[in-house]
């Protein structure tokens, strides 16, 4: 089970595995993105993610950060959530993607990482943005890595407790 947590905070937490500042598409400060690798949830707003997208040596990137509104969540088996995963597999690959979850059965968000001159163009068409509201943000170096795209065509999660696209049962 993934025990890698992500959260957007107003300021840097006292401790974290990796931290990087966020900026809006217009360059305005947008808080910090923090990651923890531990069993217990580190802060109230933290969501679990596929640990492969985390890399403290990763370069700066653009992200599409999709987060459900407070009190809203959808089952992973919801048709809209399945279709978003399907579309991610069919589109030009990003530098990394992970669904975000709090419990074992509900989607509460997603993060997609892209770099390069076409990054923003790619992220503006994030399939998860059709499920929940999305923000296009720039994140500094030091938290997000580059992961090869999912093999496909599997859209199911490997164990109910794991985020997608984590692709092993172990």
């Amino acid at each position, binding site marked *: 089970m993934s025990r890698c947590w992500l959260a957007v905070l107003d300021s840097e937490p006292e401790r974290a595995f990796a931290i990087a500042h966020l900026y809006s598409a217009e360059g305005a400060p947008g808080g910090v993105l923090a990651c923890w690798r531990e069993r217990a949830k580190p802060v109230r707003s933290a969501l679990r993610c596929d640990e492969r997208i985390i890399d403290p040596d990763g370069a700066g990137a653009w992200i599409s950060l999709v987060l459900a509104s407070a009190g809203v969540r959808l089952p992973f088996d919801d048709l809209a959530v399945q279709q978003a995963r399907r579309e991610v597999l069919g589109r030009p690959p990003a530098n990394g993607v992970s669904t975000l979850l709090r419990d074992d059965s509900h989607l509460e968000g997603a993060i997609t990482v892209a770099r390069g001159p076409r990054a923003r163009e790619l992220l503006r068409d994030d399939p998860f943005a059709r499920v929940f509201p999305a923000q296009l943000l720039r994140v500094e170096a030091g938290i997000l890595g580059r992961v090869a*795209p999912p*093999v496909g065509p599997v859209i199911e999660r490997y164990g109910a407790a794991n985020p997608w696209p984590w692709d092993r049962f172990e």
Partner: protein
Amino acid sequence: MAPIGGERFPNFELVDHAGNTRSLSELVGGDPTVLQFYRGWWCPKEQVFFRRLVRLQAEAEVAYSRFVSVSVDSPAVIAAFRAGLGARWTFLSDEARRVQEQLRLRETTDTLNDPYVPAVFVLQPDLTVHAAYNGYWFWGRPTEHELLRDLREVTMRVRGDWDAPTP
């Protein structure tokens, strides 16, 4: 030589449709996998066979089974072909024909394109060949029914909980 049933497939490395170097073992992971070698986007037989695989992906996407397709086309060409097909699995480029030579899967009758001879292998997670199909003549290729049967047999072998736990 290309392995036959019961033999282990070599763990080759090639570049995928997004430009990432991928090993076969990484791509197969822990799942039954259909490994397909195809001539190229230009071959009508391949276009028909791909439609078969695209139909099958709707079931594979919920059945923990993977597809990998390999040709000698460049990464840019395989990415465009993949997008046009509506395929949602990984395509690999063997532009240098290194793996083609290792497997002795060059179609010698096509000296213009030097493509792969069409072939399909159903692999177990440890890369053991469960079934092999020679698709030089179109009818040698696996039907959807045969692929479903093969994937079921591999799944039965590798999933320890195939017999569902019941009270």
